[in-house]
């Protein structure tokens, strides 16, 4: 039973990161109808920036801020100089450009920083605290959970309570009508990519110190897991991304804990396949409403 609780807490902490990363995917999907396959590589690139700043200043928090800012800038840049120009020819072109971007970013990171692991120290203790004899969360896990959930809450507020959030939603759902109502749809698209990459950068900074280490491929499996989480939740739904992230985190934690870590990547694929077969729209899909 103790082991079960440990795995549950561990799964929730990992799930929070998947949730944030899945949310980044959902943000772009909603804004542009593209799955950004370069999300993982972009997050690694910003994590390198973040840890370069940590190394130079000695402050984790400055590094975190730098990574998020780099994410915002990188997202805007990718939309402005790449996606905008391949977009009109169809979403498949954007997917292929995103895949190309993965290779490019990973190659550049390898050339500049080397392909080896670089140390990525955590800002808090990563040893689990014991509560009543049960090993629960570590201080770092608490920080990860808190940070991820705060970002999710802030994004929810941004989208539902602010004028710019309303503009972004309208531009995503009905670009032409939005333009007629004075919404600069292109700018909203850039903002959507920037926000998504910023959230991705944060998720990357949170997940890299949890045993992954910093190297050009650090986010490859995380991306697949987060993509699974986003699909589980329904690519259209931010709530779905969060629930899907936590759910996938829990499932993987149990699988890893009871069946061994070798089965984790397999479990991800089985889960992805099962969701696509049984409920292709995801648990929270709004597909019904879209037929109007």
């Amino acid at each position: 039973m103790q082991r079960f609780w440990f795995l549950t807490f561990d799964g929730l902490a990992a799930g929070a990161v998947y949730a944030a990363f899945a949310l980044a995917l959902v943000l772009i999907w909603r804004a542009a109808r593209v799955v950004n396959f370069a999300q993982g590589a972009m997050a690694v690139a910003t994590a390198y920036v973040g840890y370069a700043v940590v190394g130079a200043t000695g402050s984790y928090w400055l590094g975190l801020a730098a990574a998020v800012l780099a994410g915002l800038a990188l997202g805007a840049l990718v939309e402005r100089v790449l996606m905008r120009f391949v977009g009109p020819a169809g979403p498949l072109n954007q997917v292929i450009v995103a895949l190309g971007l993965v290779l490019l970013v990973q190659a550049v990171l390898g050339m500049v920083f080397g392909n080896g692991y670089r140390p990525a120290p955590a800002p808090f203790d990563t040893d689990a605290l014991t509560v009543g004899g049960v090993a629960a969360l570590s201080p770092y896990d608490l920080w990860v959970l808190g940070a991820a959930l705060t970002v999710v809450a802030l994004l929810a507020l941004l989208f539902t309570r602010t004028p710019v959030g309303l503009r972004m939603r309208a531009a995503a759902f009905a670009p032409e009508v939005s333009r007629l109502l004075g919404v600069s749809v292109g700018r909203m698209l850039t903002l959507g990519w920037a926000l998504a990459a910023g959230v991705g950068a944060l998720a990357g900074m949170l997940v890299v110190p949890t045993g992954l280490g910093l190297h050009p491929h650090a986010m490859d499996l995380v991306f697949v897991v987060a993509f699974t989480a986003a699909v589980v939740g329904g690519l259209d739904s931010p709530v779905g991304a969060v629930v899907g992230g936590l759910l996938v985190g829990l499932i993987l934690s149990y699988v890893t804990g009871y069946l061994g870590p070798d089965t984790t990547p397999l479990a991800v694929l089985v889960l992805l396949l099962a969701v696509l077969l049984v409920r292709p729209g995801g648990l929270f899909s709004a597909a019904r409403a879209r037929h109007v």
Partner: protein
Amino acid sequence: MTAVLEVEALHAGYGPVPVLRDVAFTVPAGTVAAVLGANGAGKTTLLRTLSGLLRPTGGRIRYAGEDLRGVRVEHLVRRGLAHVPEGRGVVTELTVAENLRLGGLWRRDRADARRARDEVYEIFPALARRRDHLGHQLSGGERQMLALGRALIARPRLLLLDEPSLGLAPTVAAQIMALLRRLRDEQGLTVLLVEQNVRTALSVADQGIVMSLGRVVTAAPAARLRDDDRLRHAYLGF
């Protein structure tokens, strides 16, 4: 009377397919003009070209004396030109209140945007009752009211309306036409109305512009189109 909209030798189309050919007409300020014609006459294409969604391949559009070439679509509403597109004007994933808020987001005069919204709720009480409902939960008539009301929040000078009576109960259509008449008479609103339903359109219009296969075949006072049997038979088929 000054013209709010002057169209000269307008050509437009989709890719290599020309749709509008040499279209010309004038809409004086404070009048309602109805664009009439069969399916495929180019009526919707005309509105889309006027509001910049489609780039003209030739000719000139002057709005309030100003050439609209090079003005971005999203800036037109700030100049008082509102376009209610056919059918899909409502953002169905947003609530009624959010749709209306969206219509006034660009306005600096926040107080007047709120006033305009309250007026819309007064004109269409059905919207006030359903303000927290999503767009796709509304009936066809309510959607049309919402799309029209949202355009009015901009306090437009020129309103482009595409098939406002399409699929509506006759009483709702009549209500919308009465509203257009009132806005014209009380606020001097200029309206360019595209309609399949000729009788409905001529009940409110001052001028009828009849299109066929992308050309304007006749433009005449609405009263003449209504009363002149020869014109009516030739162009409107009833």
